[in-house]
């Protein structure tokens, strides 16, 4: 728990909060604040049978899939842009094309609304009709229902999502576990924390209780199960106002991930070969400092 968990290692927290078979919701988007330290620790802990629910954060998902941790992934977009153009997620593609994992493709709003339903404590939620999409033929858990108030109005209903655990990397927490995500309006992250059964947050820094202004708090401590201080915990992705994306290291990963052998070498060198995230950062170098205007 937050009050006692400050000194816990990420490894212990993963052991406790992310057992084999967990449904894991991974926060972060594209190349922004993916919880890479937690993802690497899950790989080191050799977790199996995870069911991932993913925002568009391909890099994290690709590594978990490549490392054999995943049995199912629910997603709506996996891939992102770097200075080398569009990055397809090779281990994800390979695993799905070989039939090794279940790919539950969804739609951005459907996942967000399912999380809203999870947070609100209701079993399902209607969203506007999107019939005509073949996704409705492959998602038999998504149903068509007419409005009980206007039979001419059709909706798609999606079941609530209440994933077992949320993985989030944020800026700051206090000793009680109150979390600050320093972005202009990070409030959907609060909804995801409300939807998930357990919340695991890595942060750049932990400050004394009372040092965060209450108006800055994104997630209140009573929703947070574990906070672990991991500087540069989102690297090689970026964190607002703190550090830039490391496109060079992402290029190293993407080159490795083209083949199973290359990926295995990447795992040995950068994940199993590093005892923790600090060692990983020592190896790839500290991310470039955040660029501000003059």
């Amino acid at each position, binding site marked *: 728990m937050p009050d006692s968990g400050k000194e816990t290692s990420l490894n212990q927290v993963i052991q406790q909060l992310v057992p084999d078979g967990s449904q894991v919701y991974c926060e972060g988007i594209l190349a922004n604040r993916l919880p890479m330290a937690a993802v690497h620790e899950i790989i080191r802990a050799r977790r199996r049978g995870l069911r991932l629910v993913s925002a568009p954060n391909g890099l994290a998902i690709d590594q978990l899939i490549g490392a054999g941790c995943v049995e199912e992934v629910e997603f709506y*977009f996996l891939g*992102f842009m770097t200075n080398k153009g569009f990055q397809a997620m090779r281990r994800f593609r390979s695993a799905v094309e070989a039939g090794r994992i279940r790919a539950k493709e969804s739609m951005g709003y*459907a996942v967000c609304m399912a999380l809203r339903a999870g947070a609100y404590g209701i079993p399902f939620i209607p969203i506007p009709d999107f019939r005509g999409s073949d*996704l409705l033929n492959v998602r038999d858990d998504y149903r068509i229902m007419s409005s009980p108030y206007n039979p001419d109005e059709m909706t798609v209903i999606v079941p609530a999502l209440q994933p077992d655990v949320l993985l989030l990397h944020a800026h700051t927490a206090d000793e009680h576990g109150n979390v600050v995500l320093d972005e202009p309006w990070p409030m*959907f992250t609060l909804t995801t924390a409300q939807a998930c059964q357990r919340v695991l947050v890595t942060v750049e820094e932990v400050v004394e209780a009372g040092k965060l202004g209450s108006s800055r708090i994104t997630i209140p401590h009573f929703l947070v199960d574990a906070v672990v201080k991991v500087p540069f915990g989102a690297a090689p992705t970026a964190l607002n106002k703190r550090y830039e994306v490391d496109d060079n290291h992402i290029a190293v990963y993407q080159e490795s991930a083209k083949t199973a052998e290359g990926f295995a070498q990447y795992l040995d060198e950068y994940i199993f070969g590093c005892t923790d995230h600090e060692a990983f950062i020592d190896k790839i170098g500290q991310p470039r400092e955040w660029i501000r205007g003059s």
Partner: protein
Amino acid sequence: MRYSFPELIISTLSSQLRDGERVFTGVASPVQMMATFLAKATHAPNLLYFTILGTVDPQPFRLPYSTGSPHLFDRCANAITFPEIFDLANRGRMDVAFLGGVQIDKFGSLNMSVIGNDFSRPKVRLPGGAGGPLMIRSFKRVISWRSRHSQRCLVEQLPFTTSPGWISDLKGQRHGGPDVLVTDLCVFKFSRTTKHFHLESIHPEIDLDTVKSQTGFLFRTPRRQAITREPSENELEILRRYIDPNNIRDDLLGSPKVIQ
């Protein structure tokens, strides 16, 4: 004035946006992002730009490659959350979405899911359609950009429809689809009445036979063929000096062929 191919594409996409519109760019859309910044800096000063991060009218300290970069938080006017952009669109409060497809068919339907017959074990697993299946009909207008115009991308019929375009068998349902499709060869406009793509213009130095042979569906051609409007001096100046001074457009749009 000399300009490059990336500059032509960004200017062409920019010219599709109108003053006062609320415009959204999604995942992996830096070209569309630059076009939106260019429109706002030239003919559409009252355009409101919504990023996938939820920020409105950001002014990034550094123009990012990723439309998920936290530099799209920089100096924003204000911000909402990602699902609230959909909420607004559901209520008719959003105008333009840029949506793409790895494959696009004659009705403007988009495939971002799979190639091959077996969904659970496809020949090619594509990235996924993001918010497209709903946005394609909840936004008032959709603009598509497709690089590498070819018969493999622009097809008669899709193997899998992620986001349905202007197909005719959606009885009683709200329709949607791209009104404009810009490729590296030409600009198509979709007629909501004839339900066909019409060739609006061909890019400089491209001929009609190339467009025809590279397109997998039939489209209508006008009697007199128009050439895509070249970027203006003002657009080039603003793009080069203020929007993209580090020239990331050449990295993103391939070889910077100079057009005289």
